[in-house]
């Protein structure tokens, strides 16, 4: 009875927050539900199939693709876009359905696995990100591995080209290891399993302890992060009995086009060295805006800007803005790339001529502000 009452209050709070506060009402219901009934995730997960998606980059868009695939198999509820902490999960579970496809934050994943008992977990990648909160990449990887070990009924599917993902897959009773032929990893110098210097040969690793990306259960061709996520979405869909879909790679890049007084801006979410590198490699034109913020979800420190090679920006017109515009401006100055400093996005975009197409690499908070404006 108390759970029912808690659900009622949580739903009412969500409606009120949308009506009165004009908020999106995404995390309020889940937050209230968990406060009133801490075990709500565990109970609301019973009698339905839960699928969790986690990783540093690509969670939101991969989750959307999987929802599309699974919706042909039965009714689906999913996390509100990008809301991936336990409260977002709880909000999603307030809706009745046969399936729940949940985007889960890397640090919240162990709790969600132990309470929701998912049928399948998809692990995309794990690289340095928000270190003020994650502290260390290995720390997150160890939590994943422990969670995988303690969920023998769950099948873990993931990209074994990432040694941290491979560690979790190896720790699980049931797993499917996918490879895209290997790729370099910024944090891959040390074996996350045994702590020795990891033996890399080109894009592939093989540790004396057995951790490796060779002999995968499924081998796909190499490609961009968006392609890999699309492939993984279809792969987990197939494992669960779904049919493959054609996936819009632009949607998977977390990039959208917006018009500003005749200037087309291709807005792209960039939040850590891996997503910046991926975005920089995709720039085709010569006009670029970079927005750097340092709020909690952006990462409150900007030291990681020095981990990125910005050579692709050489020779292009680069305008920077955001709360940490000076950090990126000085970073590029030292790289030999001079930028124009502006005080906000409106000013930055106004500097381009009508008809031009500008690549906008935006911090997490900036991306959401622009897309939701």
């Amino acid at each position, binding site marked *: 009875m108390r759970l029912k009452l808690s659900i009622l209050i949580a739903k009412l709070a969500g409606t009120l927050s949308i009506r009165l506060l004009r908020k999106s009402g995404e995390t309020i219901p889940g937050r209230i539900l968990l406060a009133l009934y801490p075990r709500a995730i565990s109970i609301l997960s019973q009698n339905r199939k839960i699928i969790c998606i986690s990783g540093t980059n690509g969670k939101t868009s991969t989750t959307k693709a999987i929802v599309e695939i699974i919706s042909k198999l039965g009714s689906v509820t999913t996390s509100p876009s990008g809301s991936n902490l336990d409260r977002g999960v709880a909000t999603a579970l307030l809706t009745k359905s046969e399936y729940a496809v949940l985007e889960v934050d890397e640090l919240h994943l162990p709790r969600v696995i132990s309470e929701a008992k998912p049928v399948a977990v998809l692990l995309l990648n794990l690289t340095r990100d928000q270190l003020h909160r994650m502290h260390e990449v*290995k720390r997150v990887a160890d939590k994943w591995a422990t969670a995988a070990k303690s969920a023998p009924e769950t099948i873990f599917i993931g990209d074994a080209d990432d040694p941290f993902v491979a560690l979790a897959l190896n720790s699980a009773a049931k797993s499917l290891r996918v490879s895209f032929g290997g790729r370099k990893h910024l944090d891959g110098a040390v074996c996350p399993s045994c702590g020795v210097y990891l033996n890399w040969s080109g894009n592939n690793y093989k540790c004396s302890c057995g951790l490796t990306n060779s002999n995968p259960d499924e081998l796909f061709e190499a490609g961009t992060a968006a392609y890999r996520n699309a492939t993984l979405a279809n792969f987990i869909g197939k494992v669960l009995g779904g049919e493959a879909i054609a996936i819009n790679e632009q949607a998977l890049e977390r990039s959208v086009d917006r018009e500003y007084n005749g200037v087309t801006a291709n807005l792209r979410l960039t939040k850590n060295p891996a997503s910046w590198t991926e975005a920089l490699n995709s720039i085709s034109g010569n006009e670029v805006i970079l927005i750097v913020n340092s709020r909690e979800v952006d990462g409150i420190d900007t*030291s990681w800007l020095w981990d990125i090679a910005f050579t692709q920006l050489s020779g292009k017109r680069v305008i920077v803005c955001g709360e940490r515009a000076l950090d990126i401006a000085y970073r590029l100055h030292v790289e030999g790339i001079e930028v124009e400093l502006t005080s906000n996005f409106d000013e930055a975009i106004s500097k381009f001529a009508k008809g031009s197409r500008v690549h906008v690499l935006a911090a997490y908070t900036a991306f959401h502000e622009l897309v939701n404006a």
Partner: protein
Amino acid sequence: MSQARIIRIHNELLGTYGDQGNAEVLAFRAKFHGITTTITDVRYNDPLPTNGDIYLLGGAEDAAQLLSLEALLRGDNLEILHFAIERGAVILAVCAGFQIIGNKFWANGKEVDGLGLLDVVSVPGEKRLVGDIKTISTVLGFELTGFENHMGRTILGPTAQAFGKVVTGNGNGDGKFDGAISGNIFGTYMHGPILARNPELADLLLTRATGRKYAQITDPLALKYATWRRKVIK
């Protein structure tokens, strides 16, 4: 025309917190002073170059920190560092690197002997110290800013002097001092990277490494950035 050989030690292991940028800022500031520089990346299996003028170590996770220590104790590497210090080379070691060059530190739940180049001992604290940090440098006499993210508590021995007096943040853990110095050896918990946020410190290291005095640099963007960080970190 003077020269400075910058040796970036084990960036693949000690590069988790962006400290690799210290080498780039040194090379960049050196250009203004008319110093030619080279940056050499030393990998885990490489021997240390014997002729470095500035040796850099950065922050790392525990397992990587232990591997770096093991590699630095291999072959003649420690001798090379002792010899470098004797001939006046500079060492800048940040966070995990700072702990490595000390007498003892903890990693993966165990105490290990460090390189013993700096008279400090580091122990784990109860709480991770994460956030902006500002100090007043004891050698330079001006403010330094950065970002700290560590569990370490570092205690200075009699032959080490504190690097900075903490204004904001925690530093060595007591909230009073950050880092340690001894001659041309500098240890600190400040990321940022520290030389990007405090380019005057890069100039000081270049002066110490080459043994020459240089005129003040005019780089308005560097000044604007450093001044802004000092202002916003209260």
